[in-house]
C-alpha cells in the first residue's frame, strides 16, 4: 500500500529545487529567472537544467523578452503544471497519513 502510494509521486517533482520552483510559481503565476535564482539560491546552470526539465514535462512555459535591451527569461506555470503540483501534494499527504506511526 505504502509503496503503491509513493509510486504515484511525479518523478519530475521529487527533486527539491524543482518543487521549490513550482511552489513559487503556484503563487506568483509568472516570474523571471533571476528572481527564482535568488530565492532558491541556485546557480545559472543548475536553474536552467531544472527549468528545462519542467518545460519538457510541460509544467512550465518559458519565454524570452527584452527589458531595456537586456534579455529576460520569464517562467510561467501551465494548467498541467498546476494540476501535477496539486496531485503531488496530495500524494505526499497520503504517504504521511498512510504510514503508521511507530
Amino acid at each position: 500500500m505504502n509503496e503503491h502510494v509513493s509510486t504515484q509521486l511525479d518523478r519530475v517533482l521529487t527533486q527539491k529545487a524543482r518543487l521549490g520552483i513550482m511552489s513559487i510559481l503556484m503563487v506568483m503565476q509568472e516570474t523571471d529567472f533571476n528572481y527564482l535564482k535568488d530565492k532558491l539560491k541556485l546557480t545559472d546552470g543548475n536553474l536552467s537544467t531544472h527549468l528545462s526539465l519542467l518545460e519538457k514535462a510541460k509544467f512550465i512555459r518559458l519565454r524570452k523578452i527584452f527589458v531595456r535591451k537586456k534579455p529576460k527569461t520569464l517562467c510561467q506555470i501551465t494548467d498541467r503544471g498546476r494540476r501535477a503540483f496539486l496531485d503531488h501534494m496530495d500524494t505526499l499527504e497520503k504517504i504521511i497519513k498512510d504510514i503508521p506511526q511507530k
Partner: protein
Amino acid sequence: MIDQEKQQALENIALIKDMLTESRQELHYTGGGWIAIIWGLYSLLGYAGQRLFALARLYDWEGLWWVALSVPAFFLSVLVIRNRAKTQSVKLRRTLIRAFLLFWIPLLMLMTVLIVFCLVLADLPDHYLVPFILLVVSTGYLMLGFLFQRSILIMGLIGFAGTVVVTLLLIEQASLILSLLFGIGLIVTGLVLNRKR
C-alpha cells in the same frame, strides 16, 4: 525504508509550505514600508518648510511648499512600486497596480484640490493649514475605505479623528503636533513594515 519515505515526504511538504508562505508575503508586500517612510518625511519636511517660509514672511509660499514637496514624494513612491514590479510576476503587478490606484492617484488628486483651495483661501490662518491638509487627505481615505478596503477606512478614521481632536483642543500647536504625529507615525509604521517583511 518506510521511515525514510515518510521523512522525505515531510521534508517536501515543509519546503512547499515555506515557499508558498514566502511567496505570498512577497506578493502582498507592495513596498508600503518605504512609501510610508517617504510620506512621513514629507510630513516633517513640509512642516519645517512651512515654518521657515512663515519666519521669512513668505506667506504665499507656505501652502505651495507642501504641494511642491508632494511632487518628489509622489515620484519616489512610483519608483518604489516600479522596483517591486521587477520580478515581472503577473499577480504581483496586479497587486501593485491596485495599491497604486488605491493610494496614490487619489492622493495626487487631493493635492491638486489643495492647490486650488490654498489659492482661493489665501486668508486662511497659518495654523489651520496643516489640519486642513490632513482633513482633506483623511476624508479621501475615508471615502476610499468605504468603497474598497477596511484598513484604508481605519487609516482615514484615525487621521480624521486625530486631526479634529488636536485642532479643537490645541489649535495653536496643532500644526506642530499633527506634523510630528503623522510624520513620526508614518516613519515608524514604515520601519515596522520593512522589518516584518
